[in-house]
């Protein structure tokens, strides 16, 4: 994972649209030229969903799509509690208080490498940004494989856009309505064991819920994969000041917001 000396800024973004993809999933488009220029795949922003003191703290969301020429970026989020509920009820024209770009970002593969990405549910949010970024930089789509798993079929979003990329895609749904029946990590491990996914010259990336990332981390340790995973944790400050968001690693506790959110899967100890 890469870091560069980034200057964290505060900016007031302008909400352009709030689009609902299904009753729980939303896409928020924000006009903020600074952040559309600065954001890298894997970075996140910390935003205040309201002006009141309840809910109090900022909420973290990965950059999902960035259009530099238009000065905009998008977040893709799921309503899971009061903060995301309030965010889903925002209206175009409203201002939003943003702190970004935060954290490190995915490191890029060499042109001659292959990459394998695993997305679980909302984990697709930063990985779509990463995919678009790589394709823009002329990374060969034939060298890209995406594993994308969700619970139910209706959570399989962005499929048209993903298929248009002409990358290899493996789908999994837990109820089996589309693709492999089961968890994405099971499918991934099966492909790995049957050697349809090659280890040599391959970079791995994964993003999704913590239990999924724990599996990926276990697999990475066992097979010594170089896999970058993007973690989540409760983040009071988001900028490395409070030590509230730590994850256990083989090198001691590390701050997910500042030393991450992207970590080497072999380094972290999840439970």
């Amino acid at each position, binding site marked *: 994972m890469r870091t560069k000396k980034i200057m964290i800024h505060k900016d007031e973004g302008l909400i352009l649209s709030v689009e609902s993809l299904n009753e729980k999933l939303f896409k928020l488009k924000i006009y903020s030229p600074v952040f559309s220029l600065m954001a890298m795949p894997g970075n996140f922003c910390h935003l*205040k969903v309201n002006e009141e003191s309840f809910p109090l703290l900022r909420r973290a969301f990965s950059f999902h799509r960035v259009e530099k020429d238009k000065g905009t970026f998008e977040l893709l989020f799921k309503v899971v509690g009061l903060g995301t509920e309030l965010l889903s009820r925002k209206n175009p024209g409203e201002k939003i208080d943003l702190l970004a770009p935060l954290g490190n970002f995915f490191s890029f593969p060499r042109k001659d490498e292959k990459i394998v990405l695993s997305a679980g549910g909302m984990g697709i949010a930063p990985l779509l940004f990463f995919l678009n970024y790589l394709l823009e930089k002329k990374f060969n789509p034939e060298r890209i494989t995406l594993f994308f798993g969700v619970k139910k079929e209706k959570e399989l979003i962005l499929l048209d856009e993903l298929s248009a990329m002409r990358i290899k895609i493996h789908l999994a749904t837990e109820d089996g309505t589309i693709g492999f029946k089961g968890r994405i990590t099971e499918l991934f491990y099966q492909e790995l064991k049957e050697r349809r996914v090659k280890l040599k010259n391959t970079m791995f990336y994964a993003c999704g819920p913590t239990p999924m990332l724990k599996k990926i981390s276990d697999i990475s340790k066992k097979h010594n994969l170089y896999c970058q995973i993007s973690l989540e944790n409760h983040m009071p400050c988001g900028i490395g000041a409070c030590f509230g968001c730590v994850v256990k690693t083989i090198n001691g*506790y590390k701050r997910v917001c*500042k030393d991450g959110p992207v970590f080497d899967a072999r380094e972290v100890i999840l439970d």
Partner: protein
Amino acid sequence: MIPDLSVGIGKIKFSNPVLVASGTFGYGEEYGSIIDLNKLGGIITKSITFNPREGHPPPRTCETPSGMLNAIGLTNVGVKRFIKEKLPFLRRLRTRIIVNVAGSTVEEYVEVVRKLEGKKGIDLLEINISCPNVKEGGIAFGSKPESAYKCIKAVKENTSFPVIAKLSPNVSDIAEIALVVEEAGADAVSLINTLVGMAIDFENKKPRLSNVTGGLSGPAVKPVALAMVWKTAQKVKIPIIGLGGIMNTQDALEFLLAGASMIQIGTGNFVDPECSVKIVEGLKKYCEEKRIKRIGNLVGKLKTK
């Protein structure tokens, strides 16, 4: 008229009464790209102990109605690395630097304070005798008058820096503790540290923090903090630094009215990293509008009949 926002603790002058609270501002660097640190009255570092501390296992924080709980466990780099790695950055700033010191025994406090003695860039010490998250010490010193006295007295005998005693609200009479630390030689008191609290993940029947209990901060604690500042102001002569849930200028002014001559911003930094500098501006504007010459004129001006 340009109002005079400056205040003092002993011989130390501050350009304004707004400080940032220990544990919420790292060692200063993190916020440096977002705000102009030189606009602050001062910066208080994360608590420093003698040896580095890893802190508690995650989860360490959780949000509660208008507040948050934390059980960080005094994660810090230890006094030697603090001096070598963190102090050089702080030294370059044109704001007051207050090093917060914690320990498990009186001896540890003294050892840390001795290591800090005479170091350039440090203006004052704040002695954390009130951390609710460390089992072996911290809170014990702050919760009993005798040990609070012993700790502050020992620190004073081993430092030439002015000393602020940071008090715990988890006691039956905070003003009594304030009185004894004043007697022990403290140059000021700051209050309040966090209130012991807990939150439960009901569905899983588990505590939300690995440490089970943590410290409550944020707007939820402001009424408690105000009452404690007010009570303490009736008892002690040394300056009081008030904190607990301050999020904006009006909150800050309320603490001044209650008797605090300075204030600290803690959780407010998380909610809005610009909160502290906005309050400095806000205090200035308020004094201008109300034609108040010195901010000190507001201190303790609560009208109780």
